[in-house]
């Protein structure tokens, strides 16, 4: 038993739309960084050294 041709075509079309949807939040995030000038990946963990110890 096979999937009918119309369903197959809809699946292919919707998979292509899905690729855009998957990428959308990542693209919007990068766009927001570009607009605001934020560079959160450059933040490194800072260690405070207590010199009095």
């Amino acid at each position: 038993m096979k999937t009918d041709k119309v369903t197959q075509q809809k699946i292919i079309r919707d998979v292509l739309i899905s690729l855009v949807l998957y990428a959308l939040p990542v693209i919007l995030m990068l766009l927001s960084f570009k607009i605001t000038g934020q560079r959160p990946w450059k933040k490194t963990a800072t260690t405070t050294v207590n010199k009095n110890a």
Partner: protein
Amino acid sequence: MIQYIEQIFTHLNTWGLPVIMLLIGIAEFAFGLYENQWTKNERILDIVCFVVPKVVVRPFIAYVGLLLFPVFLPNAKNIFAWVPFWWGFAIIAVGDDLTQYWYHRLHHQLPWLWRFHRTHHSAPYMGMAMASRQNIIYTIFFSQIYLTTTLVYLGLGYPVLFVTGIKALITTGAHSSIKWDKPFYTIKWLKPIGWVLERFISTPATHHAHHADSDDDGVGHYKGNFGNMFFLWDVIFGTGIITRQYPSGYGIKHYKQEEWYAQFLWPIFKSRKEGSELAPNGPMVGDAVPLEKEVINRGLLTESIV
């Protein structure tokens, strides 16, 4: 306050959700919402499907993931931990739920996959009893578990905690036989909220339609309404219908009350019920078999009835 919310979601993802499901299940049972359809075979199947994934499958996947990720992606641990919370939340909500939409949709639209998902649809009732009901293969390959586990390893564990918690509440509510969405269709000032809600997330009305035993009465739509947390995917892809009504019957028309072990473990164990989709020589999709042929196969009638 944030710590308090964090605690709620931490517990929700461990013992909280099973407890909520048990409490709602007890309420459903007390209100007689299963209408004596919860036979011994259905009871065993529902309980096994509720317990085994939580006790065996998920711990196993988490264990294997913890073993494999450091081997195959040794430098990738927490590589995306810098992603701000709300962006992480959006990335995971879309990534997780869209993947599940596809996993679910393909099990309905590709005939060779249907029998792995059939167990979830064979229940002739809605409610907490059947919400976890799945074939073991469907559960093991539940694709978004792997995606989510990967994202946790990559450093998005904190937003995952909240997405999975909210998603569990929405999908549990959509399966419940308590129709919590009804006030949004009947009370005037709530109707605009209802309009947005039913297009955005799964509700009892839209998800019950997906579990209907009929697709041609204008209410039931088991050939669509595939969304789990978000109904939005069905709106975008045109696979959904919204009627604000609830189906008159649930399950599958050609259900033969197959043995619980066959429903849970097919194709490892098969059904002895003649003509069943789960029998050794059964059809791949039962409702694709013309009624005439099916009845003749059962030896009940030898003349055409269609």
